[in-house]
């Protein structure tokens, strides 16, 4: 198993892209597709942000990359494995090389911080306990929370829980990290700390990072490339500089936070509001 793992890393070095998504369509119902003909490539070692309004299919895209769901058409290639045609057992194997940070951390509430961070080390390696302890201490130190080993997730603040979760997903030094809304609901300090951490870890381990986020300011500081999504399709892409100076109206609206624009804030109701109040529709 370990030999096989080494071979995979070697082949991986030959390719520039960690994730290649080609013409992917996906929907939970046949008639309501969430992703429509999405194609994107993520270069190895880069930090990429996927942005867009709520419900435009960003989280679904992450699920596709982590192999939790399979596309109806098109192909998803992750770390040089075409996971759209892979049996579930092999996907499970491939996931050991990926990490994912969930929106609210998703720490295991019945385990202490130490057990949470040590979880995948204990499940996937035969390392002795004393070595695991050291690795856990290193990971916790990296997120600035060394010394919290014996705390339970309930005792942590939201920002701390997410940093612990970050340490947990980093435990096996993954080649590909996915962050699902890493900045939502954080105070400005935690937010900056998190952005800095993502940047630092990504550079230190030369790992590929994919951020799904709404936060323009924080993410623009650290990312190399941005994909904009709307209504299940990629509408615009570019480096932070290009996005800042784009003419695309939808992107402009998103970046500037305008209420009026191609993105509608109001729900497209069938009835007219003022007529409704006048009692027109009786």
């Amino acid at each position, binding site marked *: 198993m370990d030999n096989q793992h080494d071979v995979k890393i070697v082949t991986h070095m030959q390719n520039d892209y960690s994730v290649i998504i080609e013409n992917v369509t996906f929907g939970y119902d046949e008639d309501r597709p969430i992703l429509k003909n999405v194609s994107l490539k993520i270069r190895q070692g880069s930090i990429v942000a996927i942005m867009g309004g709520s419900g435009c299919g960003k989280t679904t895209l992450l699920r596709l990359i982590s192999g939790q769901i399979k596309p109806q058409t098109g192909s998803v290639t992750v770390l040089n494995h075409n996971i759209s045609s892979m049996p579930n057992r092999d996907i*499970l194997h491939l*996931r050991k090389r990926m990490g994912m940070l969930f929106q*609210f951390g*998703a*720490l*295991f*509430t019945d385990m202490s911080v130490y057990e949470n961070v040590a*979880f995948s080390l204990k499940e*996937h390696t035969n390392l002795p306990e004393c070595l695991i302890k050291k690795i856990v201490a290193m990971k916790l130190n990296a997120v600035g929370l060394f010394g919290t080993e014996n705390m339970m997730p309930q005792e942590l603040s939201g920002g701390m829980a997410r940093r612990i979760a970050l340490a*947990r997903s980093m435990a096996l030094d993954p080649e590909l990290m996915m962050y699902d809304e890493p900045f939502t609901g954080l105070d400005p300090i935690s937010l900056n700390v998190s952005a800095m951490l993502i940047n630092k870890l990504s550079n230190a381990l030369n790992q590929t990072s994919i951020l799904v986020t709404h936060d323009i300011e924080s993410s623009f500081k650290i990312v190399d490339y941005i994909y904009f999504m709307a209504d299940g399709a990629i509408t615009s892409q570019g480096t932070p500089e290009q996005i800042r100076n784009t003419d695309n109206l939808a992107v402009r609206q998103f970046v500037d936070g305008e209420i009026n624009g191609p993105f509608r804030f109001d729900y497209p109701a069938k009835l007219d509001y003022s007529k409704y109040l006048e009692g027109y529709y009786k």
Partner: protein
Amino acid sequence: MNKMIYIIATIGKPFADLILYAGGMLNLLIEIIFSLPYSILRLNLILKEIYFSGVKSIVIIAVSGWFVGMVLGLQGYNTLERFGSVTMLGSVAALSLLRELGPVLTAILFASRAGSGMTAEIGLMKATEQIEAMSVMAVSPIKRIVAPKFIGGIIAVPLLAALFNTAGIIGSYFVGVTLLRLDQGSFWSQMQDSVDLHYDVINGVIKSAVFGAVVTLIAVYQGFVAKPTAEGVSNATTKTVVSSALTVLALDFILTALMF
């Protein structure tokens, strides 16, 4: 015509739901069975499950068993007195406990005490993305969470049922011998005469092991299909208790028909 279709669909829906339900359950059972070789080696996980489902149910099982035994003693005495065969009390109490009441009531109590907890635990883990996080970390939740619960249930329920039966027999002894002044010797000897180790004791153990498996399976399944909301989880725990009770009673009939 549309009305006709609607009526037939209304009749068909519960059956279609039942088939889907059974199919989902069977699917889960197969997955659990495939992950048993892995999980059976994770002794600490199984111990933890036995602790939560078994050890914490000792008191409720022992107390319920004791009261059921006392009621059996009283009712049995009143009925048997009419036929002048009150010495049969011991055997009546022991047989009804060992064959039916012990396994069935233990399983129903287990469903409400431990099964509902399992459903809520898995439902909440799902709602807070812990299940998803686990599978993204390349650990199958079936192997890590579900299978240990399943094994724990199969081990814990027969032990709890044995405890229930013992408490029940002691309860009926208390009513029959201590309160109603039956002869102690004939109480035990009548019991020993009619109870057979293989037919009654071992079949009771087999029955409760099956019930343990079924109740944990239902509890875990309900946890997985629960809507990830507060209301969804609370509905799922209710469903666990209700459908466990119904399934255990129906299965008890089938097992009794096969065994005795």
